[in-house]
């Protein structure tokens, strides 16, 4: 394979460097070198520290690339500023291929800016990102061929009709003739827009307009599909329809990024959830890990007979995983614990010796609301300080 010049972002010196080499094998798998050309490639500090100064070695053997094999989208200190205000502040986020990553955050947290940046609708102020290996600044056309965005507010041609709007979208992505008609007809039916196909866009209801906006991405089925609040203004039936379709798109091989304010939407869709605040990523994890990450998040309500003795109460407090215990009556208590599934058997064993009989147990785990508030509330401020 011929040598190629590859630009490297050295995260130690935080400077761009250039290396010539043959970036053909990474972890035993072949990379498309054309996707590397001119793009920013990040090599983590351990790799730079551990070997020779010849960066070609890292490229070929130990390099972990921004365009890594399982990465659909990766950002490198991605920043968008308007004057002094930073809508997105040095974001480093990775979206795995084939997953649904839900961005959850309050208004102004940078979710929409992030989606617009990776779709190349906006240009970053500094930093960059790759989408399926293509740099959003230097290979923006390639990125646009790869990604599709469904905007927060329906966008398009106000005087046109749903049929023509989808037909235009299909034509832009190269569908033509009978294939185009079939895809457009089917998409209109799938999104329950068939009977409104000849109404003008401006005559559609808010929910219909939103469904049409989402439906556009089902015409060309991009490799990376991003949805900005896909069910805002949509009724419950419409929400379910859109959620099912989004999951279907993932099953067909697309990678999805969904920005939302709705906790229920995040719970329903997400493989992983990224909570954002103030233009920064606060945490990114799967739902289970996020819930487990809240100390004392599980609340166990325990009923006993005849009454709770001081010895039994002390024993419960000493069970590993107990954060706090509150006695609510003579024979009831609330225990705030980590991982209730591990805590419960130990608690039951420890109270047996005090002659106390357990009559009822009710476990409630933290909701995503609790997680969201935990990470975007005062605790998150302390954590980042």
């Amino acid at each position, binding site marked *: 394979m011929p040598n190629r010049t590859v630009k490297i972002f050295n995260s130690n010196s935080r400077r761009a460097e250039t290396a010539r080499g043959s970036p053909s094998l990474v972890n035993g798998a072949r990379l498309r070198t054309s996707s590397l050309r001119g793009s920013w490639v990040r090599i983590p500090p351990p790799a730079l520290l551990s070997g020779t100064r010849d960066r070609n070695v890292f490229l070929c053997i130990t390099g972990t690339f921004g365009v890594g094999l399982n990465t659909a989208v990766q950002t490198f200190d991605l920043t968008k500023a308007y004057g002094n205000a930073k809508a997105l502040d040095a974001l480093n986020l990775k979206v795995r291929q084939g997953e649904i990553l839900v961005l959850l955050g309050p208004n102004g947290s940078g979710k929409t800016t992030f989606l617009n940046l990776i779709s190349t609708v906006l*240009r970053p102020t500094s930093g960059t990102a790759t989408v399926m290996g293509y740099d959003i600044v230097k290979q923006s056309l390639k990125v646009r061929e790869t990604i599709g965005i469904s905007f927060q507010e329906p966008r398009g*041609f106000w005087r*046109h009709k749903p049929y023509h709007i989808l037909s235009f979208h299909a034509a832009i992505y190269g569908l033509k003739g009978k294939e185009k008609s079939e895809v457009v007809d089917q998409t209109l039916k799938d999104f329950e827009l068939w009977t409104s196909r000849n109404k003008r866009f401006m005559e559609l209801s808010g929910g219909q307009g939103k469904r049409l906006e989402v439906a556009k991405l089902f015409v060309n089925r991009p490799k990376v599909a991003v949805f900005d609040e896909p069910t805002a203004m949509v009724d419950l039936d419409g929400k379910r329809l859109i959620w099912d379709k989004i999951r279907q798109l993932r099953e067909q091989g697309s990678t999805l990024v969904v920005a939302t304010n709705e906790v229920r939407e995040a719970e329903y869709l997400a493989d992983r959830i990224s909570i954002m605040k103030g233009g920064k990523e606060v945490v990114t994890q799967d739902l289970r890990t996020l819930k487990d990450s809240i100390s004392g998040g599980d609340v166990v309500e325990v009923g006993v007979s005849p009454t709770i003795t001081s010895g039994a109460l002390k024993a419960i407090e000493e069970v590993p995983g107990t954060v706090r215990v509150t006695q609510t009556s003579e024979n009831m208590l609330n225990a705030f614990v980590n991982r209730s599934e591990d805590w419960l058997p130990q608690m039951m064993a420890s109270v047996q010796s005090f002659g106390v009989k357990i009559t009822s147990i009710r476990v409630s785990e933290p909701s995503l609301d609790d997680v969201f508030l935990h990470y975007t509330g005062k605790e998150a401020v302390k954590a980042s300080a």
Partner: protein
Amino acid sequence: MRELFTLLGYELRETFDSIPWTVYFWFYFGFQYFVYGQLVSRLILEPHDYYLYYGTGLLIIMTFNVASWSGRRFVEGAHEGRLRYILSLPIRRSGLFAEQLLLGLIANLVRIGPPLVLVLWLNGMPPAVLLTSTAVLLSMSVGIMGIMISLSFIAFKSFDIYSAIVATTSAILIRFSTILYPFSYMPEAYESVARFNPLTYGADLLRNVMSIDVSQLLSPGTAIVVVAAVGLATLSLGMVLVPRTLEGVRSS
């Protein structure tokens, strides 16, 4: 290229979907030419055949208006969100700029073409003049569209300020030019301002190709150079400014 022509087709469809708007342009011309033009040319004895002079001036005013509309449409597209959608499609930014210009030229041709044919036919001019005068009007419209689209960055901050600037620019450019009266009838102060106005050169060039009162016009060579230079300069400015402006828009 396929994407660009697909986009052009859809934008043309939207542009001409509103038939009353195009008919309005023709009605406006007819009313101005056959009513106001007739009346005012009875009062004005010099220059000779002011009716034809006025008719050509009216064509230039309409060209200016339609070309200004292209810039306004571009801005409206940003505010309505259509432009942001188009920016997300796999189309080069430079291609998008070219497509907007082509759209403006076709809109110009459709809206100005019939009045131009009418003026030429009523004055017994040969078909060759139709080609040359169309070329002059389209060249002028490229320059005007370039200016208006380049100014669009103001509109992303404030549509009101943009509208005020466009209206003021229109008023100044049209009045301080030879669109409605030749140099020889202008006070000296007016004349010195009009000589810096690109519309003056466009108007005189159009009258040159129609062979109207050539003695009172600027040299066609100079006029060609100025019209071409303004077109190229504003196009280049637009190609540099527009992509930067569009991608810096926070919300629309």
